């Protein structure tokens, strides 16, 4: 019944509704609210509402702001261009032609998803900097490219283009099978049918994935901080981080900059959402059908080499650089067999070491975040799906807000909200504050998974429970929750992988003396112990991707098809 959500009838549980509302208010609305208040009332921290908007307009009129916002836009657009140039040709090749070892390239191009961008950026620094690995092998370095705006764009493009590649190759393939072949029946050649049918139909999907790349790049902290600072290239994210972590601390400034950054992310997000939900020009989805792909002929070898090169740049090079650094006894020793050793790993994982503590902290926080965010996400999605009227709109809006909240902004909001001197009790300066930050940043993932899964459930499954005598809460716990559990497990694994190595919010709100994986890597690199940092990076990539992948395949093996939707 399409209007079931509008008609009065068997309501969802009021308890769950309030849990979702209060949870979202505390985790999402409070930080946002405090950013706005702080931006308007500069002396709010000392309990005064004096001089409203004085700093707001001052910051908005600050030439610094134009510089930062301009740089952010420049970086976003540049990264989008790099990602498009990298992704579109190989996606088209992959979809339309027989490429040797295609599945291997696909698997390799998945790896950039698993490497946090800041770790990849550090790998690139180790390779391209003066006396880096490239210079040691070939005799020249590319430091001038690395430490340039173009270099930052290229590296971020390499980190993000696989999003576009996977969306696009799949779309091309589906369209190719469904519509483009029809065009060929009516007399269009393969190229003409690609330009006239496939590409126009794929445009909304391409645009949406490029907008996602744009949002990812303007929210990124690690790469611009590691590379841009050396050449004085500051963007909004680094500008905000500066104002809140370095003396003199400028709370109103960071709040105002946060608002500007959020507006940019929000526009990108809304545009993306609009593109993906437009009715008249539906994104082509579904599984690509088997259809005959053409042989490349003499172009087979060049195309294979192109795939190999892109996969090497996106995946092989950063990982090799990380591994080389981690396995070097000393950085100055360079790439030499005599310099190889496990010293860094021994130091990192030795009993009672800081590294071990950081690993433990991150795994603990990652697990807790995964559990809590997924539970809150499931309850929220359920309440939105079952909800009616204004209530539903508010809840829905609150649950998707974090989509446009960069980590740095969440951190600023949390500092402003929970570090107020008049608060009698506060999670600030305890590990719980990290938990609040991670849940806020990652909440959209479980909400998205739960919503998709709930829409797949037949309405009658829950109705049957209600008619059989289960109250709203019992029907949720006994029927709805077990049925969406498989997708929630997938969401949990994703949340775990991201939360356990989150960088910028951890740097800003971690309590004194409390280190996480990302903070540890960052500090080691800053202090010149790149080897130790890279050893940790390697362990982090291994633990946060291998453990989840293992879990997923174990789950699949155990359920063996008896649980729907685990893929």
């Amino acid at each position, binding site marked *: 019944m399409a209007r079931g959500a509008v008609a009065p009838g068997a309501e969802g549980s009021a308890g769950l509704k309030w849990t979702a509302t209060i949870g979202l208010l505390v985790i999402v609305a409070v930080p946002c609210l405090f950013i706005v208040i702080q931006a308007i009332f500069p002396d709010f921290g000392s309990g005064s509402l004096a001089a409203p908007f004085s700093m707001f307009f001052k910051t908005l009129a600050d030439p610094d702001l134009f510089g930062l916002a301009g740089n952010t836009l420049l970086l976003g657009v540049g990264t989008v261009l790099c990602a498009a140039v990298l992704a579109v040709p190989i996606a088209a090749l992959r979809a339309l032609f027989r490429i040797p070892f295609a599945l291997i390239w696909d698997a390799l191009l998945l790896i950039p998803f698993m490497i946090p961008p800041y770790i990849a950026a550090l790998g690139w620094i180790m390779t391209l900097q003066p006396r880096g690995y490239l210079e040691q092998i070939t005799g020249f370095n590319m430091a001038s490219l690395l430490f340039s705006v173009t270099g930052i764009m290229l590296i971020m493009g390499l980190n993000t283009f696989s999003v576009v590649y996977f969306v696009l190759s799949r779309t091309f393939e589906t369209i190719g099978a469904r519509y483009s072949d029809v065009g060929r029946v009516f007399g269009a050649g393969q190229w003409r049918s690609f330009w006239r049918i496939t590409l126009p139909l794929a445009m909304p999907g391409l645009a949406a994935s490029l907008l996602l790349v744009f949002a990812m790049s303007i929210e990124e902290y690690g790469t611009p901080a590691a590379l841009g600072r050396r050449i004085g290239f500051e963007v909004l994210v680094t500008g905000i981080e500066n104002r809140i972590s370095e003396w003199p601390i400028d709370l109103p400034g960071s709040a105002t900059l946060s608002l500007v950054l959020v507006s940019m992310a929000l526009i990108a997000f809304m545009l993306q959402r609009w593109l993906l939900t437009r009715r008249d020009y539906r994104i082509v989805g579904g599984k690509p059908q088997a259809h005959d792909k053409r042989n490349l002929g003499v172009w087979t070898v060049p195309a294979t080499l192109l795939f190999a090169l892109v996969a090497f740049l996106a995946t092989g090079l950063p990982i090799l650089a990380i591994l080389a650094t981690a396995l070097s006894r000393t950085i100055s020793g360079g790439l030499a067999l005599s310099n190889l050793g496990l010293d860094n790993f021994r130091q990192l994982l030795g009993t009672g070491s800081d590294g071990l503590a950081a690993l433990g902290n991150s795994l603990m926080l990652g697990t807790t975040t995964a559990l809590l965010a997924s539970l809150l996400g499931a309850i929220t999605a359920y309440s939105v799906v079952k909800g009616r009227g204004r209530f539903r709109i508010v809840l829905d809006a609150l649950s998707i807000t974090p989509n446009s909240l960069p980590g740095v902004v969440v951190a600023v909001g949390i500092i402003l909200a929970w570090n107020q001197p008049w608060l009698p009790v506060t999670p600030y300066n305890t590990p719980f504050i990290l938990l609040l930050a991670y849940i806020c940043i990652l909440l959209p993932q479980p909400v998205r998974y739960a919503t998709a899964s709930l829409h797949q459930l037949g309405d009658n499954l829950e*109705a*049957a429970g209600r*008619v059989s005598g289960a109250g709203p809460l019992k029907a949720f716990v006994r029927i709805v929750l077990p049925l969406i559990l498989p997708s929630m497990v997938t969401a949990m694994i994703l949340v775990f992988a991201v939360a356990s190595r989150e960088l910028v919010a951890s740097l800003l709100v971690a309590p004194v003396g409390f280190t996480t994986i990302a903070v540890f890597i960052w500090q080691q690199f800053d202090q010149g112990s790149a080897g130790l940092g890279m050893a940790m990076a390697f362990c982090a990539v291994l633990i946060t991707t291998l453990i989840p992948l293992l879990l997923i395949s174990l789950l699949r093996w155990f359920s063996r098809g*008896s649980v729907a939707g685990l893929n």
Partner: protein
Amino acid sequence: MITKPPAASGNPALSLHSISMSLGGNRVLDRINVDLAEGEVLGLLGPSGCGKTTLLRLISGLLLPDEGEIRIAGSTVAAPQTGIALPPERRGLGMVFQDYALWPHMSVAKNVAFPLEMQGVRAGTCKDRVVRALDRVGLGAMAERRPSDLSGGQQQRVAIARAIVAEPPLVLFDEPLSNLDRELRETMVDEIADLVAELRLSAVYVTHDHGEALTLANHVAVMREGGIEQLASPDELVNHPKTAAVADFLRLGCLLQATRGADGWTINGTDLSFPAETIAGSQAQVLLPEKALRLDASGPMTLRTQVVRSQARSTGHALILRLAGTDHVIRLLSPRRARTGDGVDLSFAPEDLRWFPVGEPVH
């Protein structure tokens, strides 16, 4: 509120009083009144969009009415005027859904045990009753299987076991057989009829298939555009349809147009004439019931038809005949084959015709 157990109460199993409901500005139900005695089955029959499923969801509590009162076994479960709106779980019903709605994460036995578990029935008793319910639908051996391992018909039997296990005062069937293929549907109709009779179930059975409704129900409500067109026993419906719409929906026969002339009624395009006092008005519709027609020219009245098509069937030949001089089509089963274009004479008795006035709807 009743205090006596429903089995001995003598209250109607279900009583709907002036139920109205609007969805998105459309009036989907308009002042529905129905009373159903204990141990009887009410069939809700009608084309899609007539409001029958909405009415069932109102009875189950999955929807709430705008106006009116719903009483189940004597207790009021919904009455917007007095603010009564019991949620589904407090109405003590059993329900069989069109898509079965078995919970895929529970075994067959767990699915069936669920309503008892919700009532807090002790584990031992619960197990016995689940076994009994599953045996009753012939699935005792499947208790530990997953619903997804069963065929469509078996799944629907599990759903029926789940609906009857707690011995509810009223069982709701929401087009339970429409997802099954024809052969299975016919067997299941018999099975449900047996079950209903054995357990003396009070039930509401929603369907768009008149065969199912006429077989299973003691009373059938033919619904159209949010109202009840006719509420009667299956025999009464077939023999005395109240309106042309009912006759048409039940496919009782051929509907012809008639005009009143100076010397009585004539069926348009034919020379069949009837006395002027048959019915009032100047235009009328006439039902020529299929079961009143004989394949011969013995009278008392005869019709001239021409064969349009003859289709071989397992039970004979389905003839599609065109009434000479009109576009009206008559379907009839014949033991013999006929050739396209052949002339065929049909006989009937004038008192078997049903006349409906045109213009003003009958209520």
